[in-house]
C-alpha cells in the first residue's frame, strides 16, 4: 500500500547524563556538550543516570573523591548503565575509576573494568603532569575517529593508568601510560577533552554520535 510520504518526527536526541558526585567543577564539561548541541543533564540522581542513554563520569582531584559514588547509589547506577551497553565516557578521575584502583587512595576499589592500578609518575619527571602532551593513537578507535595521530590534548593529573589491551592512545611522560581506553561501549580519557580545543571537541562529538 502506498500513501503520501509522511515526514517522521525527528527522534529526540539521546540524553547524556553527566554524573555529579561532588568532585570539582563540572561546568566546563557541560559547556562543551552544550556547544555541540547535545541533550545533556548534570545529575546526582541514580535514577536519572539509569534512564539516560549515555553516561559521562568526569572528576578532578583526589581518587578518594570517587568514594562518593559508593555512598550515594551512583556506583551501582553507573555500572548498571555501562554493563547494559550504554556508551560510557570516563574523564580524568572517571577514567582512572575504570581500573582496579589507584595508589592515591589504596582503600578505594575502582570499577575493575580494566586490569591494573593507577600509579604515581616516576621521580624522573615533575608531578603533577600539567599541560598539552601528544597522543600516539592506535587505529580503529571510535572515540578517536578523525583525530590526527599525534594530536595534542590538555592533561592535569598526578597518577597515571597502565597500558592495557584496551589502550586506544598512549602518552609518554616519564613512562608510557593510557591516555585513552576503549572497549566496546566503555571509553575513558585521562586528559580533558572539554579543554583540548578542536581535538577534544571532536572526541566529544564522536561520543555524541555513537549509537546508544
Amino acid at each position: 500500500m502506498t500513501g503520501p510520504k509522511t515526514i517522521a518526527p525527528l527522534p529526540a536526541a539521546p540524553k547524556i547524563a553527566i554524573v555529579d558526585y561532588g568532585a570539582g567543577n563540572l561546568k566546563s564539561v557541560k559547556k562543551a556538550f552544550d556547544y555541540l548541541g547535545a541533550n545533556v543533564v548534570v545529575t546526582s540522581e541514580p535514577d536519572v543516570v539509569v534512564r539516560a542513554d549515555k553516561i559521562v563520569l568526569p572528576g578532578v582531584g583526589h581518587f578518594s573523591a570517587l568514594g562518593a559514588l559508593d555512598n550515594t547509589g551512583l556506583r551501582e547506577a553507573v555500572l548498571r548503565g555501562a554493563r547494559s551497553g550504554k556508551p560510557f565516557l570516563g574523564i580524568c578521575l572517571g577514567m582512572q575509576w575504570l581500573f582496579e584502583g589507584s595508589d592515591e587512595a589504596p582503600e578505594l576499589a575502582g570499577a575493575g573494568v580494566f586490569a591494573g592500578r593507577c600509579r604515581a609518575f616516576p621521580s624522573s619527571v615533575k608531578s603533577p603532569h600539567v599541560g598539552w602532551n601528544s597522543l600516539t593513537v592506535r587505529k580503529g578507535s571510535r572515540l578517536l575517529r578523525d583525530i590526527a595521530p599525534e594530536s595534542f590534548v590538555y592533561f592535569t593529573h598526578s597518577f597515571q593508568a597502565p597500558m592495557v589491551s584496551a589502550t586506544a592512545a598512549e602518552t609518554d611522560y616519564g613512562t608510557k601510560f593510557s591516555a585513552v581506553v576503549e572497549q566496546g561501549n566503555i571509553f575513558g580519557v585521562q586528559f580533558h577533552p572539554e579543554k583540548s580545543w578542536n581535538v577534544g571537541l571532536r572526541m566529544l562529538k564522536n561520543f555524541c554520535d555513537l549509537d546508544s
Partner: protein
Amino acid sequence: MLTKRIIACLDMDGGRVVKGVQFVNLRDAGDPAECAAAHARDGADEIVLLDITATSDKRKTMLGVVARTARCLFVPFTVGGGIRDLADAAAVFEAGADKIAINSAAVKDPALIGQIAARFGSQAVVVAIDARRVSNGSIKNGFEVFVAGGRTPTRRDALEWAREAAACGAGEILLTSMDRDGTKAGFDCELTQLVADAVSIPVIASGGAGSPQHFIDVFRDGRADAALAASIFHFGLENIGQLKRELQGAHVPVRWPC
C-alpha cells in the same frame, strides 16, 4: 612530549582589557571575550583573565565578564583578581573558570589555598606571586613578594612563599617579575629558575616578554613550564602561531599546529 605552554593574559580593568607598563599607565586593548577567543584561535594554550583592580577597588571579580568569556572557550581558563575566600572562588568557578588565581588573599591567609584545593582540586588553584628584586639584603633570596596589584610590599621572600604555597596545595605558581612587567626587556630568568627548581608544581613565568628569544631563554635558562604574556599579543607585535614556529625552530617543544 609535554610541551611548553604559551599563555595569553588579559589584564582587565572596568570590564576592558588593558595593559600597563610596570603596573601603571593603563592602555585600552579590547573586549575580554573577543580577545580570549582570538588568542585561542591563534594558538594560545591557555587564557588567564586578571581583574587587576578588583582587590585595590575592594570589589568582587566581574562574574558576568567571566561567564561571557568562558562560554565558548575550550582551552584552560584561569581567572584572578578579587578572590578573597572560598565563596568568591566558588562563584568564579560557577561562572565558568577552570582555575582561579589568588595572590593577596593567599598571602594573608595561606590556608585558603588548601580550602579551595580540597573542594575543587589542586589543579584548579594557581597562586600568583608578584616579586621585585631588592638589593639591600633584607630579603634572603633577593626577591620580595608584593600584594594588592604590586602596590604593597610584604617583606616576604618570594622563593620561600612559593614553597609554602606548593605545600599548602597550590597546583601552579604564576610568577610575575614586577621589574620586567611591561618592559619587553625579557623575562627574569634568574627569578624563574630559582622558583622552578624549588617546587615540583609547574611555574608560569610572567613579565617582560618582548620577543621570541625571550621565550626561548625563559624555557631553557629559566626552566619555566609555561610563559605568559599580554601586551605583545594584543597589540599585534607577534602572533602566537609565529612565536610557536620560532620556538619549534629552536627545538622548544610546543603545541603546533593546533
